[in-house]
């Protein structure tokens, strides 16, 4: 298993390099001029100097290699320095700078990461808590009213776009009932129970919107996987030796059915980050997604490049986690 994990990790490196190259090419092919938004009174020589200062003077392969060096070598070294307080080398390195804010992109990302992680992480936990019981019951009582309604609702969950559920929740809970705030306040600090409650309330809607979409998916997989397992011989054996129905379903069947579902959850997480782009826009959460939209609107190429690449890293990482988890949880799977 360890062997397999290492092999997959090594294989992830060329994949990520290829992805970073594709992202770089796409952005580089773009016809836009980064100095296009500057005032027209700037003379052409100065404009050329600005372009040089943005690092645009070099040919394409050199710029790509420089970006790689900045992102894969300089930034990790900087992080190590910040965490440990050591100074490696001279401590003076070029960092990936955002064009619009002139600050290092990684700092911006670190600033915004917690909000996104909280919302996405909570939504996954909520989704699993809701989806697993629904899946179990609708499989155990196949074709019952509960199952039919569950199927219909999960179909709606698949089909309704996140921005619609977000708007509906805002209309109901913020406008009509006035229970929850429609705007996420990021400056809010949790210090006591009261402020904790405020935090819970402002996180409720973004979390629910993301959780609804995931719940629909997980509950369908849970149901299908339970149905596969309920007819297996080991279930008959468990019943025949006189186990209570409860422990047959909850221990024997549920545990085996969770195996494929866990991988589905892991594979879905990068998609949730994509959904988070829209959710953050609706609820004005200043997370990674909103940073990406800001970067896109401001034509801030280094920022967009780095963020897109971070999303790619997340996808590759979670694919890897899903495969490894599958191998650990199901001893029948042998990769070697």
């Amino acid at each position: 298993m360890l062997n397999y994990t290492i092999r997959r990790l090594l294989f992830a490196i060329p994949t990520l390099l290829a992805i970073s190259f594709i992202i770089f090419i796409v952005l580089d092919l773009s016809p836009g001029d980064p100095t296009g938004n500057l005032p027209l009174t700037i003379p052409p020589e100065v404009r050329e100097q600005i372009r040089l200062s943005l690092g645009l003077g070099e040919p394409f392969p050199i710029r790509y290699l420089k970006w790689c060096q900045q992102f894969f070598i300089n930034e990790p070294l900087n992080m190590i320095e910040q965490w440990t307080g050591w100074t490696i080398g001279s401590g003076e390195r070029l960092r990936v700078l955002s064009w619009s804010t002139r600050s290092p992109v990684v700092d911006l990302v670190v600033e915004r990461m917690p909000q996104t992680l909280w919302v996405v992480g909570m939504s996954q936990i909520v989704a699993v808590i809701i989806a697993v019981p629904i899946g179990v019951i609708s499989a155990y009582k196949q074709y019952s009213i509960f199952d039919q309604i569950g199927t219909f609702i999960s179909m709606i969950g698949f089909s309704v776009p996140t921005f619609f559920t977000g708007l509906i929740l805002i209309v109901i809970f913020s406008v009509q009932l006035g229970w929850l705030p429609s705007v996420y306040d990021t400056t809010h600090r949790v210090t006591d129970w009261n402020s904790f409650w405020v935090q819970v309330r402002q996180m409720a809607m973004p979390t629910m919107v993301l959780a609804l979409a995931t719940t629909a998916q997980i509950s369908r997989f849970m149901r299908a996987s339970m149905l596969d397992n309920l007819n297996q011989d080991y279930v008959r054996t468990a019943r025949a030796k006189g186990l209570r129905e409860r422990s047959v379903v909850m221990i024997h069947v549920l545990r085996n059915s969770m195996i494929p579902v866990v991988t589905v959850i892991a594979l879905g997480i990068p998609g949730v980050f994509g959904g988070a782009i829209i959710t953050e826009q609706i609820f004005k959460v200043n997370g990674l997604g909103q940073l990406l939209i800001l970067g896109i609107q401001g034509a801030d190429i280094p920022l967009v490049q780095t963020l897109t690449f971070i999303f790619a890293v997340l996808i590759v990482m979670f694919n890897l986690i899903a495969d490894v988890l599958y191998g650990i949880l199901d001893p029948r799977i042998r990769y070697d």
Partner: protein
Amino acid sequence: MTEGALPAGQPVTGIVEAQSRSLWGDVWVQFRGHKGAMVGCFIFFAIVFLVLFGPMIHTVDPTYLDYRAKNSGWSLTHPLGTDNYGRDIFAQVLQGGRTSLAVGITAMLLALIVGTIVGVFAGFFRWLDGPLMRLTDLFLALPLLPLLLVVVMLFRDTLRAAFGPETGIFILIVGVIGVTSWMQTARIVRGDVLALKEREFVLAARSIGTPSRRIITRHILPNILSPIMVSATLGIANAIITESAVSFLGLGFPPDFPTWGRLVSDNQNFIGLNPQWAIIPAVAISLTVLSVNFIGDGLRDALDPRIRGR
């Protein structure tokens, strides 16, 4: 999906056949029995019909600014009222539906063509299998929504200059959605082609000297039609959602060119005052996608030979 699998090849007994049955006749009979799919079909074709022929009956220009009638409620001239510029909501929704459906269907076709070609080539020619599947894996690992937004932002002006504001954006969005959503189709098609390639009738065709091109068009393609049809429905749903998400984020069509996503995005600021402005187009998106998904579900059941013909 709704039924447990029956033993394959169970003989149909007790029914006296009145006339010969064709494969697609069987599929149709099975499909008709799926209630959700029939309702989905009805709603989807109703929406298509309304969107296609609605503007001929309701002839108000969706972009006409009638300031005197702004913010008006339900009336005969404006069945769903007007927005804050006095534009007719109903006409906007109809016009937006035309764009959204056109984008959805065209992008689906593009993704289907690319996916089928990649899948067939990867499955049929052994030496292409490795490279094409690695390519597919690479595309699956790309962060699609961010990349899509970036590409739309970067190439919008070029295409707008080349093809005009509406056509340019249309080509861009359809192209980008098509290029980023063919991977599932390619994988499914490749799997089916790999299995079909080893069957006797393909061997027979090859033994009488049929060239590969003819084997593919004559023997392989007709047999992989069912998974392609199922992924076509999923493709429409996916494309409509993606287009509306891009428009919602303000990167889609120009502001005076309504699409469903654009309407939701423009009107979300009035959600406290006039929620129906944003909710009507959002409901239209959801209903379309929901009905397409149900059609897909029914098709999958109808095309599954283990369930069909019971």
